[in-house]
């Protein structure tokens, strides 16, 4: 049975309870000595690692710098994919010839694990930001393009006929009817693409980088700093959640009619 999600104080309380339970389990596990301390830092140690890094930075980089590097790469690659992917998907949805020409390439790229071609991108673009932005672009592009194409195909035909009979020409129909009609589907694609881009950027930083949250985690592992590793993971989770929340807020504002019309 479908039920409306909880909101308000009850939801907050329930969520706080399970977070507290997870923290308690973690603390108990660390204190029990079942896992070697250098492999599992306690919550308190992670907290002090956070204080230390905020105060002194981590190996010559600040936390803010690393977070900004990761988010910046993610959003640059994602943003480029939006700019190109949405028009591409619209074109494929509107023009069967475009879909025939490009469909297989998009469907080939879509399930391809991005890290499998990461190495090529590094060879081509170097180990700097260029290869990572290209990687994220290629990760997000097919997801966004497919979603936009699906959105176009779902536009109710009477809506298009209504616009045409009101005097709208082809491009007016595309701009005033097809694009807004496809927005709910496009936003679904954007959410999936952003999550994919974020997990890929971290993986890419684990492979080759000189800064970023992923790099911080990898570097910490070389020095067996499980407190920093865990801290990095927690920050990554929070950042990822914040990114998708922000996108969801934008989506609710833009496609306010979705699910109600």
């Amino acid at each position, binding site marked *: 049975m479908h039920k409306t999600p909880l909101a308000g104080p009850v939801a907050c309380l329930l969520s706080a309870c399970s977070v507290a339970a997870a923290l308690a389990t973690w603390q108990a596990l660390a204190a029990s000595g079942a896992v070697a301390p250098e492999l599992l830092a306690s919550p308190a140690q992670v907290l002090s690692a956070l204080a230390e890094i905020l105060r002194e930075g981590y190996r010559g980089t600040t936390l803010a710098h690393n977070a900004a590097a990761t988010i910046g790469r993610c959003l640059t690659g994602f943003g480029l994919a939006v700019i190109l992917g949405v028009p591409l998907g619209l074109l494929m949805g509107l023009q069967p010839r475009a879909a025939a020409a490009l469909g297989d390439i998009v469907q080939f790229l879509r399930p391809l694990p991005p890290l499998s071609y990461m190495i090529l991108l590094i060879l081509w673009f170097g180990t700097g930001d260029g290869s990572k932005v290209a990687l994220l672009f290629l990760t997000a592009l097919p997801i966004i393009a497919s979603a936009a194409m699906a959105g176009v195909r779902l536009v109710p035909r009477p809506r298009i006929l209504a616009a045409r*009979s009101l005097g709208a020409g082809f491009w007016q129909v595309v701009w*005033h009817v097809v694009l807004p009609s496809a927005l709910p589907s496009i936003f679904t694609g954007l959410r999936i693409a952003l999550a994919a881009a974020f997990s890929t950027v971290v993986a890419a930083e684990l492979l080759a980088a000189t800064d970023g949250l992923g790099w911080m985690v990898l570097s910490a592992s070389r020095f067996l700093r499980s407190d920093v590793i865990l801290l990095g993971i927690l920050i990554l989770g929070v950042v990822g959640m914040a990114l998708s929340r922000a996108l969801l807020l934008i989506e609710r504002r833009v496609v306010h009619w979705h699910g109600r019309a």
Partner: protein
Amino acid sequence: MSARHYVAFSDVSVTFGHGEGAVRALDRVSLGFGRGSFVCVVGPSGCGKTTLLNVLAGFQAPSDGRVSVAGSEVHGTGPDRGVVFQQAALFPWLTVAGNAAFGPMVRGVGRRARAERAEHWLRIVGLWEFRDRYPYELSGGMQQRLALARALANDPAILLMDEPFGALDALTRERMQEELQSVWRASFMTVLFITHGVEEAVFLGTDVVVMSPRPGRIIERLASPFAHEAGARGSRKVKSDPAFVALREQVLGLILEGPETAGQ
């Protein structure tokens, strides 16, 4: 049908598909009517009513024959022919006012002028106070009134309506019929109105066209005097008038039994 008529379907056929599975949705249909007529088309579902409307709207090219308006052949859609669909097909991202102004907007009418045009029609259909709402905040009847206002804001010479009140409850439908009729009486509009409601057709139409399926054909065309009388006499009075009941039964007989047996 000759081009003397304002709207003329001449030997129009529409076939969907090929070979064995082909469907003859319209079979050499000829129909003409003058400016200001209110033509209601009735018939069982699948008899080609929507196809007939789509051909005049320019959504569907005839496989054979031609359709003309004021002597010139119809090719594609045009703002001279406004359409109201069964499902309102509104633009959910636009406000009520935005929907009503859509036609003038895409046709390049200035901001002020199109706002005035939208206001005029929204007031007439009683939606002006809802102008800043969104379609999903309206009831089914209000949505359909908005679809009507949106079509009328373009000043169409011909209004095409495909079972526009089919999804409404009886009370709302009756009110909408009266509103539509008074709008039509106050204008020079020509209306092609598709319905499966026989009473609705006889009440609203100056002409009632009866179609039959497989292949889609016009089997009868009757003149109905009630469209002009309803305003003066009130719709309940008209609908219980023996002459109205007799015409309604005649049309119903045509639909159920075909032209041979009806009216005997």
